[in-house]
Structures are given as structure tokens and as C-alpha cells.
């Protein structure tokens, strides 16, 4: 059973000057689950893309069952039995088609298939596939009507149905509930017995405990640690992934004065537990949790995009019920949203116009834009944030992702506020820009309360005074950012049952 399905040696890949893979070597044995861990930007996604034929490596070898494997396209990789379920779920399903068609998509796309579709045949085959993975929904439903977890299961079922030899799963449980994840693990066990090699990308401890045979830790484009054997050294793997122990991050805990934001008995949805969270002036509070833990919902509520199911929000002691972003801004709450390309960047505008977007009123007299005031304030912000550009008149599209993010965060720092909310401020940002942004946020945090939502732990410990962990819309952990018990924090994030029980017994 210990055949090596796939052997990678000294794989390198650069994007321009940016070296993403700096010589990856690893072996993936058949019938085993190799878990790959790595922080944001470590190069996990690029490695996956090379393996599944989306991108070509610059140098290095990949061998599949002993013969060289250099797929030029995903179709070629598919023919060799290398099947990938990508992290972004919507790449794995076609929303306008029904479940049956989605499950059979790969066979439909094969050249030489019969021209006409036979509904009954398709249905029979789809039922079989759905049964194998325990999907219980109606096969005639259009996928667009399904929730994110069902879509994820369909994408996985599709991959399993292709009879993979090497199956790559990129964060497959990120949107699954515990029960669905368990179903997935059963499927993985079955595939293992059939001798499929599985490369499983995740750093959720619950996943790793349940299925990992080996752990590969990845950092800065290299494999920084390999762990095998009966007792997998999870903490060691985390340290290898981050490159240093958590206690190496040095944050001077800020002095805290009066409370700015208080959530009193706030319920995010009707059946969720109440939240009681306070953020004070001078404090940087990080709220972390997985997708669906309620982070996005909470940020939307605070910025007037959603209404809470129940409870009260106090801003500087006064009732705060924003009904629109404009309303929230007027009350002194600024929010930099996640996913800058969709939610923040105005692609047709230059840096200045992007920076000043929320405050055009402040930068104009009787409605006419005051170009001089705009230029002065913007060039200050460009300097303090360290935005790399020729000047404020550069189009935002000419900047790198990290610099774009600096513009978007800088936008909300142009004017003072009572509460600054940053939703995933380090998304798609290189390590240098991340440090710059983090430093600046901490440096300016004295006169306001700062609330940051991130899903990566290493980002959280870099900038937080205090970290609160959300799981299924409830607080499951709270840590002051000093000598944090990292494994405990990680297990809280992944909703480990023990800590959940503890949290329940505390209440």
C-alpha cells in the first residue's frame, strides 16, 4: 500500500520577481492522506495549480507513478487521474444547472459522448454518485438554490465520481457543518482503502485529527516540516508553518480607556446564542472564526447593512441602530469591507478619488471638489501608509494588490472616527504590505476603538490586543494577546467539541 503515487522534486515557480515556490519536494503515497498546512501566501494554491495543470512550473519534476507528469491543462491532469476540488466552491459547480447535471459534468464534457442526453440514464448514474457521498437532497434542484455546504458536497462528489488516483482537496471543510464534514471523512476513508492518494489542504485541527496520516507544513514556498507516525505533532506543525512560535510576535498591549462599542445580549440570528462584547477606546480587538461563524454578519450589522435578530448595540453609551452605511459613517463608524475588488475599489478612479470616496462632502465647497485640499491630504496618506506609486493621480488599477489594500484601508483613516471596523484587511496582501498596514493600524489606534475581523490566526496575533473567537455565531474563546495558548485558540476556531462543551458549561 505504500506505493508513491506522486513524487515532486525541487519544484519552482515565480510570478515576475515574486518567487512563490522555492523548491518544493515531497512524496504523496497511495492510500494515505497527506495534509498540507501553510499560512496565507505560503504558496499552497500555486502548488495545487501546478499539479492540476492550471499553471506551469518554471523548473523541477513531478512524477506520477514513476512517469513524468507535466499537465498542460486541467483536462490533461484529469485524464491522468489527478482530480482537484478547489477552495473557491463556485469553481466546482455550475449554479444554473440542476444537481444531476452538475454531478455528471465531467463525463458530459468528454469528447465523443453521445449527442443527445438521456435523462433516465443520467438520473440513475447521478443517484449512484449522490448515494456514495451521502447527499440527500433532490437531484432535480437547481444548484443556485442550494446552500454553500451542499454545493461543496456536490463539488467533492463530482471529483470522487471521476475515479481519481490523486485527489486534491483544498480546504474542503471550510463551509461544511460538523455532520457534513464527518460524511466527507467517511468518503475519504473509503477512497484511502481503494488506494487513492489524497492531498488535503487545511489547518483545522479537527480535520487533521480525524483523517491525517502525515502533515506537511509549508512556509514561504518551501516545505518547512514533515510529520508522520502515530502521534502527529500538531503544535510542531503549526510552528513550522508560521516559522516561529506564537510568543515571538510582540505586541505591546495598549492602554484601554472608556468603552466605545458595546454589544448587549446581541443575537445574530434567531436561534443563536447572545453575544456580549465590548471594545474600548485605544484597543484593537480581533474577532476570528471560520466562514459562517458570524463574523461577516456582525460586521454587516455594525455598518447598517443587516439588522440583528435581537439585542442592543451601544456606541459611546448611546443606542446605535444604523440603517445604512451612510448612517453608520455619520455616527462615526467606519468600515473597510472584505474583498476589495468587489466591495471597495472603484476601478475607473485614481488613487486620490478612491481615497476620498466616502468623504467627498468634506473635500468640496458647495458641492465643487476642492482639488488642492484633496491633493494635500491624499499625499499625506500615501506617505504615511507607504503606498508605492508615482503620485495620487495614478490609476488604482496600476497598483499591486498590497498597495490597493493600503489605499482601501487608508480611505477610512483620512478622517477620525469613533470605531474603525476592518473586515479581512490582509486579504490577498503580501507580507510586507501586511506588516505596513498592521503597524499603521496599531499606531493610529489610540483615539478610537478598532475592531478587526480575520480568519487567519497568524494575522490575528500580529495586530490584536485581544482576540475573541466566534463559532456558530457564539463566543467560544477570548484571549489577551500575551503568551497565547495557540493550540487551544486553534481548536476553538475549528469548533473542537471539548472547548465547545467548556464554553457551554461556562454559560
Amino acid at each position: 500500500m505504500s506505493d508513491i503515487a506522486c513524487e515532486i522534486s525541487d519544484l519552482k515557480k515565480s510570478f515576475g520577481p515574486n518567487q512563490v515556490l522555492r523548491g518544493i519536494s515531497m512524496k504523496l503515497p497511495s492510500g494515505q492522506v497527506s495534509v498540507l498546512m501553510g499560512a496565507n501566501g505560503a504558496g499552497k494554491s500555486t502548488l495545487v495549480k501546478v499539479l492540476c495543470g492550471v499553471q506551469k512550473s518554471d523548473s523541477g519534476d513531478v512524477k506520477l507513478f514513476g512517469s513524468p507528469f507535466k499537465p498542460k491543462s486541467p483536462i490533461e491532469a484529469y485524464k491522468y487521474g489527478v482530480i482537484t476540488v478547489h477552495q473557491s466552491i463556485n469553481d466546482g459547480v455550475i449554479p444554473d444547472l440542476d444537481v444531476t447535471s452538475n454531478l455528471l459534468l465531467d463525463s458530459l464534457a468528454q469528447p465523443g459522448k453521445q449527442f443527445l442526453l438521456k435523462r433516465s440514464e443520467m438520473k440513475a448514474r447521478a443517484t449512484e454518485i449522490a448515494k456514495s457521498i451521502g447527499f440527500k437532497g433532490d437531484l432535480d434542484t437547481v444548484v443556485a438554490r442550494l446552500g454553500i455546504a451542499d454545493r461543496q458536497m456536490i463539488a467533492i462528489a463530482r471529483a470522487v465520481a471521476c475515479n481519481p488516483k490523486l485527489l486534491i482537496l483544498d480546504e474542503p471543510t471550510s463551509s461544511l457543518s460538523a455532520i457534513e464534514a464527518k460524511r466527507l471523512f467517511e468518503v475519504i476513508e473509503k477512497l484511502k482503502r481503494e488506494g487513492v492518494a489524497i492531498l488535503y489542504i487545511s489547518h483545522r485541527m479537527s480535520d487533521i485529527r480525524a483523517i491525517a496520516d502525515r502533515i506537511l507544513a509549508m512556509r514561504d514556498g518551501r516545505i518547512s516540516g514533515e510529520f508522520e507516525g502515530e502521534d502527529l505533532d500538531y503544535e510542531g506543525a503549526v510552528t513550522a508553518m508560521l516559522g516561529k512560535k506564537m510568543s515571538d510576535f510582540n505586541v505591546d498591549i495598549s492602554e484601554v480607556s472608556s468603552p466605545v462599542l458595546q454589544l448587549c445580549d446581541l443575537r445574530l440570528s434567531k436561534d443563536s446564542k447572545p453575544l456580549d462584547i465590548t471594545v474600548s477606546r485605544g484597543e484593537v480587538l480581533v474577532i476570528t472564526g471560520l466562514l459562517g461563524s458570524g463574523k461577516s454578519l456582525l460586521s454587516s450589522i455594525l455598518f447598517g447593512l443587516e439588522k440583528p435578530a435581537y439585542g442592543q448595540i451601544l456606541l459611546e453609551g448611546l443606542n446605535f441602530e444604523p440603517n445604512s452605511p451612510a448612517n453608520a459613517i455619520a455616527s462615526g463608524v467606519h468600515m473597510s469591507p472584505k474583498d476589495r475588488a468587489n466591495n471597495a475599489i472603484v476601478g475607473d478612479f485614481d488613487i486620490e478619488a478612491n481615497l476620498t470616496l466616502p468623504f467627498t462632502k468634506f473635500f468640496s465647497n458647495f458641492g465643487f471638489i476642492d482639488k488642492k485640499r484633496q491633493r494635500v491630504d491624499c499625499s499625506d496618506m500615501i506617505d504615511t501608509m507607504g503606498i508605492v506609486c508615482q503620485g495620487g493621480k495614478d490609476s488604482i488599477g496600476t497598483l499591486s494588490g498590497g498597495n490597493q489594500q493600503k489605499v482601501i484601508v487608508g480611505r477610512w483613516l483620512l478622517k477620525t472616527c469613533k470605531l474603525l471596523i476592518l473586515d479581512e484587511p490582509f486579504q490577498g496582501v503580501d507580507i510586507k504590505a501586511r506588516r505596513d498596514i498592521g503597524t499603521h493600524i496599531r499606531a493610529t489606534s489610540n483615539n478610537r476603538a478598532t475592531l478587526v475581523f480575520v480568519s487567519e490566526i497568524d494575522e490575528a496575533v500580529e495586530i490584536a490586543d485581544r482576540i475573541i473567537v466566534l463559532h456558530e455565531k457564539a463566543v467560544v474563546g477570548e484571549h489577551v494577546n500575551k503568551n497565547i495558548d495557540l493550540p487551544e485558540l486553534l481548536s476553538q476556531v475549528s469548533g473542537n467539541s471539548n472547548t465547545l462543551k467548556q464554553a457551554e458549561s461556562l454559560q
Partner: protein
Amino acid sequence: MNKDILREFAIRFGFILLAGLLVLFFSFFASGFAGPRSAVFIFQSVAITGILALGVTCTLVVDGFDLSIGSVATSALMLSAYMMVVLEQSAFVAVMACLLMGAVVGLVNGLLIVKMRVPDLLATLGMMFLLIGLQRIPTEGRSISTGMRLPGGQVADGTFAEGFLWLGRHRIDLFLEKLIPVPVIIFLFISVLIWVFLEKTRHGRLMYAIGSNERAAALAGTNVFGYKILAYMISGITASIGGILLAARLGRGDIASGNNLLLDSVAAALIGFAVLGAAKPNAFGTAIGALFVGILLQGLTMMNAPYYTQDFVKGAVLVVALIFTFALSSRVRGGNH
């Protein structure tokens, strides 16, 4: 490097250069083309389409589209005639009624799009049909002129007020006697007004922000719904101004006039994308775009090109302008998309 500069130059000034060359060409080869009267004639020929085009530019800025402008203009034409000839109202009342009608149509368009979530093209297409039909109902499909027989059997004996006709026919002395027609002045005035509004005020900037990334604009606290409705109201009002000027020039409520208004003005706004390499809707470009078409048609007419080639010429100009915008300047815009 050199190639880049050349390309940049072509994108920015290509279209204006082309317009300049056309003027030179016609000045040499079409006798009577060069001269103030001919120049004014060109302005006059594009004034009404230009005004409509400026309105549709505002809707393009918020990433919308207004197909109803042509029918708003003809409705204003019929409404003003009906007000004066049948209801025997004054010029002032007629003008106000038309402007109000334009604003209301724009408001309804905006509400359909924003509140009812009807896609912009479909909402304004529906409105277009509605208005084309509506304007025929009061007169049972006939044109309006003094002395016409009404559906009830009476004879309409109101007339077009002098003041109203002045709007369409009067010419102001400037160096030469009776040189500049009032519609040209109104066209230039509205051009400057819309240009200042879009380029110099924060409201214009926020409208551009909505057009580029609506969600980002909303999350920056912009009143997206309000600005979208405003854009359609501007479009409705400018279209009704166009209709008023057309009625004042014709002096009767001609049911068949204004057929070409929609296509011509949309073309002018789209040609405007190419001016100065803007690659987006802009008031200056729209005005230049309208003039460009005017110059070309005037020159060709003077060189005895038959009238039926006009639409073909306009179409060709539009296609070339679109190539300018989308093929040549794609690199400039490409950044974030």
C-alpha cells in the same frame, strides 16, 4: 517606448485630430463649407440631438441606459402643441408642463430600475413604448396644428405662442446679423452645465463611482438609489427640452418627427467615449461626438452625397469610435478588471 507614446497620443487626441482634418478637408473641397454661417448650421443641426445625448450621458455614467429619451422628446413636442393649440395655454405653461413631464418620466424610470429592480434597458424600453402610444391617444393619432378637428368635433383654434416659437427660431446677432439660433445657445449652455456637474462636483464623482463599482460606492456611504434616480430625471428633463426646441422649430405638433432622435443621440454619447481617450461616458466627449457627426454630414451634403447615405455614415463613425474606445484603450483601463 516610442510606440507607447504614439499609441497614447493616438488614444487621447486621435478623434479630435480626425475632426480637425475633416474640417480642413471639407474647407478645401466643399465650396461654402468654411464660414460662420455654415459653422452655425452645423451647430444647429446637432443642437437637439446633442441635448438629448447629454442626458443619456448622465445615465451612462451611473452604468444605466435610457432608451426612452426619443419618446420623451416627441411626447414633449406633442404635449407643448396640445397645451397651446388645444388648451390655449401660454408659452410658459407649455414649457413648464413639458419639463415636469420629463422629470416625472425620469422619476418613474428611476423607480422602476431602483425599486422594482427592472433592468435599465427593459424599464426604459417599456417606457418608450408606453410614451409612443400615449402621445397618440388625445388626438386619435393625428398631428396637432391650428384649425385641426378634435375627436369631440370642435375645431382647435389656439396658436403657438410667439415666445414659444422664439425658442426654436430666433437668431441672436453676433458680429453677423441673426447669426446664432437660440437652440445652439441652449445646447452650449447645457453642455457646460452637465460638464461642470459631472467633472467638478462631488455629485458627479459619486455618480461615476456608482457606474464603476456600485457596491463599493454604497459601502462608502453613497446614496446609490438617489443618484441613479437623479440621473434618469436629468435624462428625462434634457429630453423634454429637446422636444420643446423641436416643437418650437416646427411650429406644429408633428406626430412623425423625432424618429431618429434616440439613435442619433445615443450614437453621439457613445462616440464621446473615444474623445480624449476617456473610455467612459463624459459630457465634453458627448458634445464633440454630436458635432463630429454634424460636421461629417454637412460636409458630405455639400459635396452632394445623397441624403440616404446619412445613416450609413453615422453608423460607420460610431463603429470606428467604439474601436477607438474598446480596442485601443483597453490597456489603459485593463488594470483591475
